[in-house]
């Protein structure tokens, strides 16, 4: 008689049985794992708090361990990593500090292994090492690599620990990390599909050979693995100590209750801080592929895709994010892979709703995401597509959604929580470094954006929703790429104006130096160029166009020899190009590869979030403060804020003329009333324009694409403009 093999989960169950049972209980009760009456954590809150803190401490110490071992500045300096503890069936219990995107995404890989019978067909044993980054399972892009380690207790699998690290090189087509000149899967580089790459806590040597033969810079990747594995082992051992101390029954029940309690708390927070209803906005994504050197010729076209965003805050305290009307997917790397929207949701939620250190799967359970099939957010041909740049489509979308959440807080009175953000941008380099080695070089740090204004104060400067911005040592990149850091300065002119203004983003300028041949390209998570994202709040303006520039001096050697000053900031937007002593080329966010030479300067200025409120209502004292600190010009003060001020040379400060300011502001309001027309008049003219299809061809194609996928979108468009039923573009 054949022996019935026991599962590796609790009480001899298979992981699949555990997973299916918990899913059934959630369906039937609406409570995570069927926990309709949490009792354990509530019975002894001090013990519960200690339990939570001990796990969190283990995760954070694991993260620090990883930073010590890794060599990549992305880990050591930027700290773009995170560690999570998961249940046996892949549900996140606690997430470390760090980049909290992957709360659910890492768990999806565990679930995928369970669904695909790894327990039986691959084998899961204590000390096994798994690696994965496959976006067709769940990921933002393949450069985020997950290391996964099972945790066993007395022969039973009780959980998993996962570490995510963003890699500088995954063996993709140049520039090898987040290339925009790629369409097909293979150009994404190495893809690991939950592969077992080690056992007894050791990486297999053949896996190391695989990396050594398939990456431009395998040392960096391997040391990251060793850092991640060490971190995971450290957490695993701490968890075992914890089980020793608290008992396995407490561990099993308490970890599940942490998720259910967070689900309940999230609903309570939504009901406490928001107002139910329908909130709407839109994010148009510009995707420039026509000039990209791709061999898959179907990909060579420029398109704009609408992403309408509708947030329904339901009376039950649940939230539905509906993206109906989103345009079609395409042959480029900006489509969004399965589950990636949950990653963007996670990083947004931990900013203003789930920021108490308790974020886990429970934070996400009150949410539903509707991504239309065949759209940019839910593409076909998933197995064949590259996914290196999904952030292009989602970062501004969720920056705008942050503002929609903010409006819901504002309505309820929690004004301090409302703000917007915009995506960053940057250069990626590839070619030969200062030592002559062929290298991929993704530079962290240019993503130093700034937060939009809040309804109670100006936005934070140099802010980003990820750990990137607090990189203290920007010059570290000089060791990894052949350039000199010229400057990192606030960009004075790119501001979301308003009663409260946005913060200032940090412009980065780097001078190419010491290379034997270098190329550059763009697109790091930015999806806007000609259309600025709609991030102004309640009368505040969105900030202007984000900047990617190549500056080429006419006579650099002479300037240096004569000790003449070089340019360190982008300066006045009107005068800069005219005054720069050489050539200035402004690119969109997806420039095709260009060759850069010794002395070339590459400049990046991300754009901050939007302003809040009418700029004419900005307190003149705040305008004076900006003037005194060199954060505004006399022209901005007068033209945007309606503030009249004079510079006093003796005191080296500005003085506001309050009477002249009041008069100027009254004049400006009168001008508004004179130039403003009833919306009905403007509506009539625009309607005629639409009927005659007098729009840029890219916009016509954009509307066609959304209407093709969504009858509701087409119907609402026609209803708003009162177009004939048979109207189409």
């Amino acid at each position: 008689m054949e022996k019935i093999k026991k599962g590796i989960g609790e009480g001899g169950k298979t992981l699949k049985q555990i997973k299916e049972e918990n899913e059934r209980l959630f369906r039937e009760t609406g409570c995570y794992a069927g926990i309709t009456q949490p009792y354990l954590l509530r019975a002894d809150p001090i013990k519960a708090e200690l339990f939570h803190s001990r796990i969190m401490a283990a995760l954070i110490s694991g993260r620090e361990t990883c930073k010590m071992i890794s060599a990549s500045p992305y880990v050591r300096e930027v700290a773009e990593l995170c560690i999570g503890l998961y249940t046996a069936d892949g549900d996140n219990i606690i997430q470390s500090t760090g980049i909290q995107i992957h709360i659910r995404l890492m768990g999806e890989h565990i679930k995928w292994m369970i669904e695909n019978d790894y327990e039986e067909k691959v084998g899961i044993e204590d000390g096994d090492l798994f690696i994965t980054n496959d976006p067709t399972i769940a990921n933002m892009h393949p450069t985020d690599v997950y290391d996964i380690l099972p945790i066993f207790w007395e022969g039973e699998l009780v959980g998993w620990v996962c570490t995510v690290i963003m890699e500088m090189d995954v063996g993709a087509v140049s520039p090898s990390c987040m290339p925009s000149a790629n369409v097909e899967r293979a150009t994404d580089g190495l893809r690991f599909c939950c592969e077992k790459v080690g056992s007894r806590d050791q990486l297999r040597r053949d896996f190391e050979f695989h990396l050594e033969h398939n990456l431009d810079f395998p040392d960096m990747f391997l040391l990251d693995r060793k850092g991640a594995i060490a971190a995971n082992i450290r957490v695993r051992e701490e968890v075992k100590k914890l089980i020793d101390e608290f008992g396995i029954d407490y561990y099993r029940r308490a970890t599940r209750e942490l998720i259910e309690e967070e689900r309940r708390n999230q609903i309570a927070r939504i009901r406490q801080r928001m107002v139910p209803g329908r909130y709407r906005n839109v994010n148009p994504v510009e995707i420039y592929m026509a000039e990209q050197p791709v061999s898959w010729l179907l990909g060579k076209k420029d398109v704009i895709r609408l992403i309408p965003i509708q947030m329904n805050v339901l009376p039950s305290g649940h939230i539905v994010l509906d993206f109906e009307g989103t345009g079609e997917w395409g042959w480029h790397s900006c489509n969004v892979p399965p589950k990636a929207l949950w990653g963007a949701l996670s990083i947004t939620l931990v900013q203003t709703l789930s920021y108490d250190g308790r974020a886990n799967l429970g934070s996400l359970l009150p949410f539903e995401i509707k991504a239309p099939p065949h759209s940019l957010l839910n593409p076909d041909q998933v197995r064949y597509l590259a996914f290196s740049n999904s952030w292009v489509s989602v970062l501004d979308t969720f920056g705008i959604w942050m503002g929609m959440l903010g409006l819901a807080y504002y309505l309820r009175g929690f004004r301090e929580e409302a703000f917007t953000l915009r995506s960053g941008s940057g250069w990626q380099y590839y070619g030969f470094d200062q030592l002559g080695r062929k290298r991929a070089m993704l530079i962290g740090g240019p993503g130093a954006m700034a937060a939009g204004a809040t309804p109670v104060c100006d936005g934070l400067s140099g802010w980003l929703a990820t750990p990137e911005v607090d990189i203290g040592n920007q010059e570290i990149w000089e060791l990894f790429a052949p350039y000199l850091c010229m400057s990192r300065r606030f960009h004075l002119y790119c501001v979301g104006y308003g009663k409260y203004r946005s913060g200032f983003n940090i412009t980065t300028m780097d001078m190419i130096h010491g290379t034997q041949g270098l190329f550059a390209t763009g697109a790091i998570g930015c999806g806007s160029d000609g259309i600025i994202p709609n991030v102004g709040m309640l009368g505040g303006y969105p900030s202007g166009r984000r900047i990617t520039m190549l500056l080429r001096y006419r006579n650099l050697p002479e300037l240096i020899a004569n000790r003449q000053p070089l340019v360190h900031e982008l300066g006045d937007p009107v005068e800069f190009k005219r005054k720069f002593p050489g050539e200035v080329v402004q690119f969109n966010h997806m420039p095709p590869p260009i060759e850069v030479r010794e002395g070339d300067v590459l400049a990046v200025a991300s754009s901050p979030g939007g302003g809040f409120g009418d700029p004419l209502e900005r307190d003149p004292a705040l305008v004076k403060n900006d003037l005194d600190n060199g954060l505004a010009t006399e022209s901005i003060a007068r033209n945007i804020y309606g503030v009249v001020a004079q510079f006093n040379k003796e005191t080296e400060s500005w003085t506001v003329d309050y009477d002249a300011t009041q008069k100027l502001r009254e004049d400006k309001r009168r001008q508004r009333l004179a130039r403003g027309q009833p919306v009905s008049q403007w509506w009539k003219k625009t309607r005629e324009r639409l009927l005659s299809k007098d729009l840029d061809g890219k916009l016509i194609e954009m509307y066609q694409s959304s209407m093709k996928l969504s009858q509701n979108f087409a119907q609402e468009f026609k209803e708003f403009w009162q177009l004939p039923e048979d109207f189409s573009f």
Partner: protein
Amino acid sequence: MSYSKEDLKALFEGKLPWEQVKQIMSRPKDDDRFDKYIAILQERVPWNEQILLPLGEHLYVVQKGSERIVKCDCGQEFGDWRQNWKLGAAIFVRDDSQKLEEIYPGYLCPDPNLCEVREYYCPRCGVLLQVESVPVGYPVIFDILPDIDSFYRDWLGRPLPEEKEFKDLTYEVTRKWRESL
């Protein structure tokens, strides 16, 4: 957790130092915020209708007789709250380089072939109520359609008299515009 009305007023008026704002951000939230918020707003407006919900720095949904309308603090009325109030505003559209460069000069200027920036003013007091940056031809965005009855009934536990159907009535306005063409 609770804050005094004076502290909240100072917060809303931007008079609290950043350290205190940060503390209010980080701490657990106060359950009585909404009622104090409405009381502060009600004191600020020169008219007597009950504010049900703010929609912006100058706009409110108010109870006017048996109707709920959107009203500016200057007294301008924008109609039923279920119609997009923007349709009752004065609009100025920055749709060419010259107009866009007044806000976004030089290299910051968006592409006027693709993008327009719409400014919505109160037609009575000229305050800038909302700015909208969208692709040319995109319908006016109806940013917020609050479910006021569910909010008062289910979340605040004090239902409003004469509940209204929660639905978007904006297209009734554009239908009338077309009929008058």
